[in-house]
């Protein structure tokens, strides 16, 4: 069975290490915050100007001045700090953020990512995504493996305008976990009940299967 969004988030949370500063994008990446493993302390960076982002507020305590990059109301934690947008992207550009988790519409087998524009259909803009992918040391993409029509979103090359070149290191999709290497996508884990044949059939880019492939623990 293909994974739910929550299971994708849970798997990505296993990549977190104690002491990490982490930037979570909008959508599935935001859910990663719900699955931070026990005993691990991470600090969430929100690019609109906050380090140490806390959970959503309880009803009645929403504050219009306190939002995340997805414009949702949030809270702070002990030790939180606010800053302006230039400093926010300064810490991203300077490589101070340890891990960035983003959504994507397409990823190519060399690590190119497209997630900001569908010409003629959707023009929302790149927000902070281009800055993040140009500078982040470690980028994990959370995505559905195929579009609604069943076409692979893991491609030889992106068909949509790209957000950044050769920057994605790892993908967690609803079918498996993929490292991106000089030899394209390497499938290192498969979702429970998803066969290697299905992964091969639904991956358009260059794909190899790791000899010691495991089942995802989600």
């Amino acid at each position, binding site marked *: 069975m293909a994974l739910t969004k929550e299971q994708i988030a849970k798997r990505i949370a296993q990549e977190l290490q104690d002491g990490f500063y982490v930037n979570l994008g909008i959508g599935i990446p935001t859910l990663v915050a719900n699955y931070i493993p026990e005993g691990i302390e991470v600090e969430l960076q929100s690019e*609109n100007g906050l380090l140490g982002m806390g959970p959503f507020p*309880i009803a009645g305590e929403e504050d219009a001045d306190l939002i995340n*990059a997805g414009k949702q*109301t949030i809270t702070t934690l002990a030790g939180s700090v606010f800053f*302006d*947008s*230039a400093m926010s992207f300064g810490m991203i550009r300077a490589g101070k953020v340890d891990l960035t988790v983003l959504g994507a519409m397409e990823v190519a087998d060399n690590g190119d990512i497209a997630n900001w524009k569908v010409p003629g259909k959707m*023009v929302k*803009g790149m927000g902070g995504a281009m800055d993040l992918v140009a500078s982040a040391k470690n980028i994990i993409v959370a995505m559905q493996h195929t579009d609604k029509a069943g076409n692979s979103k893991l491609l030889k090359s992106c068909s949509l305008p790209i957000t950044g070149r050769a920057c994605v290191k790892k993908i967690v999709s609803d079918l498996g976990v993929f490292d991106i290497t000089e030899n394209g996508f390497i499938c290192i884990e498969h979702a429970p009940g998803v066969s290697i044949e299905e992964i091969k059939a639904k991956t358009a880019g260059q794909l190899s299967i790791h000899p010691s492939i495991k089942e995802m623990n989600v």
Partner: protein
Amino acid sequence: MSLHKVVANAEEAIKGIQSGQTLLLGGFGLCGIPENCIAALVKKGVDQLTCISNNAGVDDFGIGLLLQTKQVKKMIASYVGENDEFERQLLSGELEVELIPQGTLATRCMAAGYGMPAIYTPAGVGTEVADGKEVRNFNGKDYLLEYAFDADYAIVKAWKGDTKGNLIFKDTARNFNPLMAMAGKITIAEVEHLVEAGSLDPNDIHTPGIYVNYIFQGEAYEKRIEKRTVRN
């Protein structure tokens, strides 16, 4: 730069703004936007404006209000979702739009405020954002040359301000506001609380008043929440 900055209201603060000028507008989404000045611009009716702001508001609030009245000729922003009228004007060609990376937007403000003509950033290298821009390699990595903004006015919103124009922002309503405050040729600040000079602790001030030309205490702040989200 005059030391006498306090004006009565938004109408007085924006009275010098003319059609065809370029405005920097602070805020992220609807958080920390200069509500009073936007309303005054709608009332004044200046048009053919170039607006530089991270977002374009929603249909009935923020910069969306200036789009409804077709006062905006060109929008420079990083993310413009959640606004149907914006999308309609963009797809029909009525509105000129330049989408730029959010960090680039912030840093082009910063450069203007620090008196620097341009900066290099890796954001957008190898993408359509790089079209026509100078690329320079530093230490093995490519960067794009991006110019400081050259805007006639910056319009920002702060939490507290004093009669000398010193500003303090609150929480994530800070965002682009202090950067834009530094970047305008003329800067207008609207504040929730205007106090006498001397009543703010100098250690707490985010924007020194030298960057601010006009300041006033805004009224009837709606501070709309775009995506109210609570814990289960």
